[in-house]
């Protein structure tokens, strides 16, 4: 099968955005079929093409203050913390490194942040294609993750609004708990997304049947 090219896309009036393919496009059917409903339900969904911008800046600098003003949210200063404002959510990646997740268009967000950084030491890089987003939701979601995540995900130590870099199975992910349904968003690197999705689908399978006492 021939790959679509930019020429064909431009002829049809579509930009590069219309030509991009999510790293999990080929698993769409499998992911949908894996849905478990009921009291032990768990659902897997992919949210492709979310805007992600990697941000590095000294946390105590003026540039950091300018960026906080631009985002309208403080840069979280502690591991696991996130902050949100409008379309943006900022996740802590390191003492001077953050990942800005956004519903807004990636070039606009990157340009805005780059302007706020100005000449100060640091970097603003559009990494939207680096990772994809998997959403795992439902009453059994925590049990599915607990099969392969070394972190304590119990509500006493992990709550909505927390995001940490860790592993699920052997795959490095950024794990973000969105609400207490519970809903988790996993951000694996694109090349590991296929493996992680299949791993999760396999882990979800047992919740189809009744609980084994």
């Amino acid at each position: 099968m021939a790959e679509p090219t930019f020429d064909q896309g431009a002829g049809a009036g579509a930009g590069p955005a219309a030509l991009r393919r999510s790293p999990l496009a080929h698993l769409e059917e499998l992911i949908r079929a894996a849905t478990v409903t009921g009291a032990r339900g768990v659902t897997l969904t992919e949210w492709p093409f979310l805007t992600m911008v990697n941000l590095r800046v000294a946390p105590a600098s003026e540039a950091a203050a300018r960026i906080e003003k631009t985002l309208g949210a403080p840069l979280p200063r502690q591991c696991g913390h996130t902050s949100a404002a409008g379309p943006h959510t900022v996740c802590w990646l390191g003492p001077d490194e953050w990942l800005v997740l956004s519903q807004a268009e990636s070039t606009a967000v990157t340009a805005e942040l780059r302007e706020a950084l100005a000449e100060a030491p640091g970097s603003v890089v559009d990494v939207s294609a680096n990772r994809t987003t998997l959403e795992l939701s439902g009453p059994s979601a925590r049990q599915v993750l607990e099969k392969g995540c070394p972190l304590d995900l119990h509500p006493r130590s992990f709550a909505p609004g927390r995001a940490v870099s860790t592993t699920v199975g052997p795959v490095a992910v950024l794990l973000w708990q969105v609400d207490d349904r519970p809903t988790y968003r996993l951000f694996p690197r694109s090349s590991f997304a296929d493996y992680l999705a299949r791993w999760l689908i396999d882990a979800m399978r047992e919740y189809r049947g009744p609980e084994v006492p």
Partner: protein
Amino acid sequence: MLLISCPWCGPRDETEYHYGGQAHVPYPETPADLTDEQWAEYVFYRDNPKGHFAERWMHSLGCRRWFNVLRDTVSYDVLAVYRLDEPRPELPQAGGNR
């Protein structure tokens, strides 16, 4: 499995880290003046103490920062964790370091 406390992320499993060998091995001040033997000493020769050992680790699957760990090579106890800009903490009977 070791449980190592990253100075920034807190306690995490050993599988999230990468090992970086002995800590506090300074780069030679005048590398051009070194003989081959001194270079070999700097590049390849490391302590192998029985007891307390200061070593570098990196939290590669977390915050991706390097830091130092003081570990007991006999009991595998993690005795102290400190950042690269902090001095090695004093512990009783500390040894096995340059």
